[in-house]
C-alpha cells in the first residue's frame, strides 16, 4: 500500500498571513499604504537573494527553477519589513532589505545564519540611519487582532515545530508583566490586558522569534533562550522605558545561539526535513487509522 501525501510548506502560510495582516492594517487600521516602499522591500530582497544564490551555486539560477527555497525566506523577510519598518525615504527600504538578505550570508556560524534576517534589517536600519522607526502602537490592542494573530500564528508555528519558543517567550514576558503591573504596581487587570494584547507583541512571538532557523537547535536551549529574551526585553521596557524592546533584544541575543548549539548538541532545523517529517506523521496517522478500521 503506497501512500503519498502532499504537505504544504509552512512558509506559504506565513506569507499568506503576513499579506492578510498588511491588508488588514491598510484597510481597517488606517495605515498609510506605501506601495512604492512595499515593492522596494520585496523587489530588493528577491533580486539580492537571487544574486546571492547565483553566486553561491556558481551558475545562473533560473527564476523558474529556483528551488533552493531562498526566495521564500527573502519574501517572508521583506513582508516583515513591510509590516513593521516605517520610513519616509525610499533608499531606506533598499538598505533595510539588503541588510536583511546579506546578514544571512555575512554572519554565519556552523552553517546557520546568526541573526533573524528581518529583525537584523530592522534593528540595523533604525539604529544606524536615524531615519526609520517602528510603530508599536500601530496595531492597537483590539481583541480581534489578538484572536487573529494567535490563531494564524498558531497554525504556522505548529506546522513547523512545537510551539516551544513562542510559548516560552510569550508566557515569560506576559508573566513578568503581570507580576509587575498587576501584582506589584496594582494596576487594574485591563491595564495588563492592553499590554499583552498589542498586535506588535503577538506578531513578534508567532512570526519572528519563532523562526526555527535562527533559534538554538536543542529544545531545552530554545526554551532557555526564549525566556532570556523575554526577561531582558521586559527589563528594558518596564524599567528603562524603551519601546519595541523584544525585537532589539532578539538581535542582541542572537550571538548566544551558536554558544547554545555548542553546549547542547542537536540536529539543525531544515525546512525540507520538517515538511518530510510532517508528511511522515500524516502517513503514519493514515496508516494507523486504516489498521484500526481493519
Amino acid at each position, binding site marked *: 500500500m503506497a*501512500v503519498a501525501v502532499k504537505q504544504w510548506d509552512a512558509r506559504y502560510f506565513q506569507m499568506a498571513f503576513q499579506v492578510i495582516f498588511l491588508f488588514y492594517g491598510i484597510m481597517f487600521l*488606517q495605515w498609510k499604504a506605501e506601495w512604492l516602499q512595499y515593492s522596494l522591500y520585496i523587489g530588493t530582497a528577491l533580486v539580492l537573494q537571487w544574486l546571492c544564490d547565483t553566486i553561491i551555486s556558481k551558475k545562473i539560477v533560473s527564476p523558474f527553477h529556483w528551488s533552493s527555497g531562498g526566495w521564500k525566506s527573502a519574501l517572508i523577510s521583506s513582508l516583515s519589513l513591510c509590516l513593521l519598518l516605517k520610513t*519616509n525615504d525610499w533608499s531606506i527600504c533598499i538598505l533595510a532589505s539588503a541588510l536583511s538578505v546579506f546578514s544571512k550570508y555575512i554572519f554565519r556560524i556552523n552553517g546557520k545564519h546568526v541573526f533573524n534576517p528581518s529583525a537584523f534589517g530592522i534593528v540595523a536600519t533604525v539604529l544606524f540611519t536615524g*531615519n526609520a522607526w517602528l510603530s508599536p502602537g500601530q496595531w492597537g490592542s483590539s481583541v480581534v487582532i489578538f484572536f487573529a494573530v494567535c490563531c494564524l500564528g498558531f497554525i504556522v508555528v505548529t506546522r513547523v515545530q512545537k510551539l516551544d519558543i513562542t510559548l516560552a517567550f510569550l508566557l515569560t514576558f506576559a508573566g513578568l508583566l503581570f507580576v509587575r503591573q498587576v501584582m506589584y504596581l*496594582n494596576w487594574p487587570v485591563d491595564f495588563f490586558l492592553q499590554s499583552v494584547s498589542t498586535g506588535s507583541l503577538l506578531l513578534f512571538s508567532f512570526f519572528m522569534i519563532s523562526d526555527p532557523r535562527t533559534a538554538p537547535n536543542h529544545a531545552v536551549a530554545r526554551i532557555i533562550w526564549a525566556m532570556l529574551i523575554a526577561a531582558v526585553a521586559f527589563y528594558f521596557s518596564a524599567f528603562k522605558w524603551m*519601546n519595541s524592546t523584544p525585537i532589539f533584544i532578539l538581535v542582541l541575543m542572537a550571538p548566544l545561539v551558536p554558544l547554545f548549539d555548542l553546549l547542547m548538541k542537536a540536529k539543525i532545523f531544515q525546512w525540507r526535513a520538517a515538511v518530510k517529517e510532517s508528511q511522515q506523521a500524516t502517513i503514519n496517522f493514515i496508516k494507523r487509522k486504516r489498521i484500526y478500521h481493519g
Partner: protein
Amino acid sequence: MKRKIISAALLLVFVSSDVFAFCGFYVSKADGTLKNKTSQVILVRDGERTVITMSNDFKGDVQDFAMVVPVPTVLKKSDIKVVEADLFQRLNDYSKPRLVEYYDDNPCEPRVLYENVLSGRVAGVSAQKESKSKNEDQERFKVKVEAEYTVGEYDIVILSAEESTGLYKWLTANKYKIPKGADEVLEPYIKSNMKFFVVKVNIEEQEELGFEQLRPLQIRFNSPKFMLPIRLGMANADGDQDMIVYAFTKNGRIESTNYRSVLMPTGKNIPLFVQKNFGSFYANLFQHQWEKENQSVSFVEYAWDVSPSNFMKCDPCVSEPPNFNDLKEAGVWWLGKDVYEEYVNEYNTNKTKNVFFTRLHVRYNRKAFAQDLVFQETPNKENFQARYIITHPATGNLTCSEGQNYLKELKERRKKEMSMLSQLTGKGYDDWDLVMDPELNRTIVDTSYQSIAVTESTPMKKTGTGKTVFLASMALLSVLTMVSIGRRGKNKE
C-alpha cells in the same frame, strides 16, 4: 465645613460634575457631541528632558482651584514656571482643523482662497476650597512633603508617599475631596516612584499680580518616561474627556506607543453649507471617526516642521505660525538665546535648531483607555493638516452649452459632497444640527442641496465593529480553506 476637591490637571480633570465650571466657547449649542471637558497640554521633549505646560482655563472662584499631577521627579523651584495664557490660544489657532474655499469661475479658471476656522474648544480644570498647606501628620500618613514653593499665583507642594491609603488620608485631612476610585490609581503611581505635584492658588499673590485668569503652569524634568498620566483624571469621570497635545520635538512627529495613531481624514470636498457651521461639522466628524476607530486611538490633527530653516510653516496659514518667542515660551530650550536673529532673517540649516510640531487630539474614557498615554518621538517629518474644502459655484449667466454642462457637473459634484459629508460625520442631510444656523435657528442649506438630499438615500451607518467582524471571518475562512487544502493532500492507493 467646605472641602477641597482635587482636580488632577494635566489632563486630569477630576472634578465632580456639579462643581465643574467650564465655560469654553464652542459653536454647537444643541448637540451633545461637543465635549467641554477639554484639556490642553504642550509637550516639549528631547532626549530624556521633558517640559510640560498645562493650560488652565478654570473659570470659577479661584479659591476652588486645585490640581494634582503625578510627576517622575521632585521638581526644583527653577523647574516650575508660569507662562502667558494666550500661548495656548495661539497654538490652537495655528494648528486647528481648517476649511478652505475655492470659487468656480463661469466656467473658466479656478481661483483659490482662504480659510475658515473652527473655534477652539478648550477646557478646564477645577475646584476646591481653602488654602492650607501645613502638614503635621507626615509620619502618620507616610507622606513626605518634598518641597513647597510659591510660583506666580500658585502655591505648590510636592509630595512623595509610601502608600496610597496614607496619601489618600493626608489629602482628606488637608481637606481635599478625593473622588471615588482615585486610590486605585494613586497606588500604581506611588509604587512607580512618582511624586505628586499639588497646586492651589495663593490668593494674595494672585491679587497682587493682578491677573484675572489663572495662567498655565509649566514644569520641566529629566526622566526616560515620556508619557501623560491621564488615568488620574479618569478616576471619577463618567463621560469622555478631550485632550489636545501640542508637541515640540527635534526630529519629527511624536506618536503614542500604546494606542493607535490615526490621521484625521483630510483634503475632502464637503458641501458649501458646512461653512456656516464648520465647528459643528468638525465636532460631528471627530465623534464619528472616534467611534469608527473603536475609541482607543489618538488622532493626528496637525504636524508641521516649524524649524527656523523652514519658511513655509503652514499652507494655508489659519493664523500666525508660532514665532521664536512662542517656542521659547513653550519651553523649546534647544533654540538657545542667540538664534533669534537667525530665526527671523536667515536660512538656517543648523540641525540642532530644528523644531517639529505635532498636534494630537485624544478623546478618552476609562473603558477605552486603560493605560496612560505613552509617546515616542519618530523621525517622521511629513507635514499634515486636517483640511476640508468647499467650492462656491459660478455665478452669472450660464445658458451657453458649457454653462449647461457645468450645471450638470455641479449637480454630480454636490451629490458627491453630500455623500462625503455623511461618510465623514455619519450624519446625513436629515440631521438638523449640520444644516441649521445655530444663531438664526433656521435651515441654511441652499435649495440645490436640498433637492439632491431628497433623491439621495440616507447614508448607511457603518461601524468599526461590522468591518472587524467581516475581516475576522474573512481571515478565518481563508485559514480554514488553506488548512483543509493542506490536510486533504492527495491520497493514492
